[in-house]
């Protein structure tokens, strides 16, 4: 089976909007960001079930949003409590999937940030194709800015060649057994440092295939991102 995993555990402290995590802010015609993101996944018939890892304080709120905006699809979606960090949220989703559907080498998970509502069907389809073939893939776009490395925050320690640099987006997709095994092998120290699932694959010598992302697959991290996103969208247009 193929599972979507929408990561919505964040509380939005970088937005300066204290009362509401950014994935719940209204976008476009008024639907919350997370619903826009979810709707793209729901349109992908190859995805059997979608798990949403929400902050424990927001699980019931998320469930209420689903009942309001996607009532006909509620059977395909399950909201669970996220963990204390990104890794914890993914682990909780893996456990929930296995509790509901058992373990199988044919389970795959497409993890995606709730705050990337501009993800396209093409990117999701390409992730599914890649993960079925390679077991692990990451969505990236070529870096346009020069990347400057500084280990002490004072002086440059390196400027890598830009043509080898990419910016990571999501989805990141994995064979479920592979990801579960990697998490089980992590020490507490590793877990504190390794917040990116693809990096865990990399340091364990598991090849991670690249999927071409899109510059418009923005992550709404700051209030500025949110305002730019609002300005990008025209509401209500259709035929």
């Amino acid at each position, binding site marked *: 089976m193929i599972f979507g995993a929408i990561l919505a555990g964040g509380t939005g402290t970088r937005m300066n909007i204290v009362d509401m995590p950014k994935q719940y802010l209204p976008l*476009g*015609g008024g639907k919350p960001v997370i619903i826009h993101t979810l*709707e793209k996944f729901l*349109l992908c018939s190859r995805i059997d079930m979608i798990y949403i890892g929400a902050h424990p304080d927001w699980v019931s709120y998320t469930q209420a949003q689903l009942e309001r905006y996607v009532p006909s699809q509620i059977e395909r979606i399950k909201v669970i409590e996220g963990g204390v960090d990104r890794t914890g949220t993914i682990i909780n989703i893996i456990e929930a999937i296995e509790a509901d559907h058992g373990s199988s080498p044919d389970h795959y998970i497409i993890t995606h940030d709730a705050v990337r509502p501009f993800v396209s069907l093409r990117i999701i389809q390409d992730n599914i194709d890649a993960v079925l073939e390679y077991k692990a893939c990451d969505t990236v776009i070529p870096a346009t800015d020069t990347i400057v490395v500084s280990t002490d925050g004072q002086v440059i320690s390196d400027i890598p060649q830009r043509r080898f640099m990419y910016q990571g987006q999501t989805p990141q997709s994995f064979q479920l057994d592979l990801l579960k095994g990697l998490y089980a092998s992590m020490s507490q120290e590793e877990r504190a440092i390794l917040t990116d699932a693809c990096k865990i694959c990399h340091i364990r010598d598991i090849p991670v295939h690249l999927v071409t992302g899109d510059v418009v697959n923005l992550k709404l991290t700051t209030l500025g991102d949110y305002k730019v996103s609002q300005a990008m969208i*025209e509401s*209500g247009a*259709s*035929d």
Partner: protein
Amino acid sequence: MINLVYQLIEPRAFSIKFEDIDVAGKVLVRPRCMAICHADQRYYQGRRDPAVLKRKLPMALIHECCGEVLADPTGTFKPGDRVALIPNVPPKGDLGEFYENYVKGARFLSSGHDGFMREIVAIEPRQLVPFSKVPFEVAAITEFISVAVHAVTRMTKVAHSTRDSFGVWGDGSLGYVVCAVLREFFPKARICVFGHHPEKMALFSFVDEAYDSDQIPADLRVDHAFECTGGNGCASALDTIVTHCNPQATVMLMGVSETPVPIRTRDVMEKGMTLIGCSRSGREDFQQAIAFLEHRVFQQRIRRIIHVDAPVRSIGDIIRVFATDTRTPFKTVFKWEM
């Protein structure tokens, strides 16, 4: 839901518009294959009046498209159903004796309204015609075939009942599909095609006679004619049509000309001819086009004029297919994977 719309903002330049689409009463369709029409190419290359371009752009191009239903809150279709998309949006209600493609208040997607170059098309069920036995790359040109169906159907409603011979002026894609549709409607009629390109006319294997437009036998006559040249060819085509039609012939005008075209009215009057302007199509024409396409022989004939280019996965690919289209003799079709 946030939808991505790929708009032409000025000739040869595309940009992405994001729209939060309202899906109430709409079917969500993922475009799978598209075809380029001369009208799209004219917008793309900027070969329209600058005032028209200023008024109509930005706009998503493409009105020849088929796709797959992703979801349908209206319950008309199932996810996975294959559908041809109708770009003409007539006003609702009884249109009386008027065709939906000419009636006042009709909109046309890709002329003043966004065409089908979008990630997802949210569209009313009445604008979709389902099919099952037609490959996507052939179904992509359903709209184009429906235009020929409309012209032939309309001719049959207007013209006198002698339909032993037809002349089709133009050896391009439009001439080809008009000949193919005529052959379906009138299996025993004598169909003559007139053109300037022997290499193109060689493909018209199912017509009875093919002539170089400059060397038409003086005594050749047809009962009715279809003008499918367009552009600069319109004037000379109409000139020879008037010469080679029998009295009281009906002439369907289908080629688009951007400049005035002279007509020998003395001879038109003397022969009592009827000239009918004909463009676009409606739902019934789409249904008939799909019915024809589901016949193996017709489908094979149509396939012969389709060049399937590499899939479109980026804006650079959109520019590529428009360039390819200038080099292909007939129809350019491509998979849409944006």
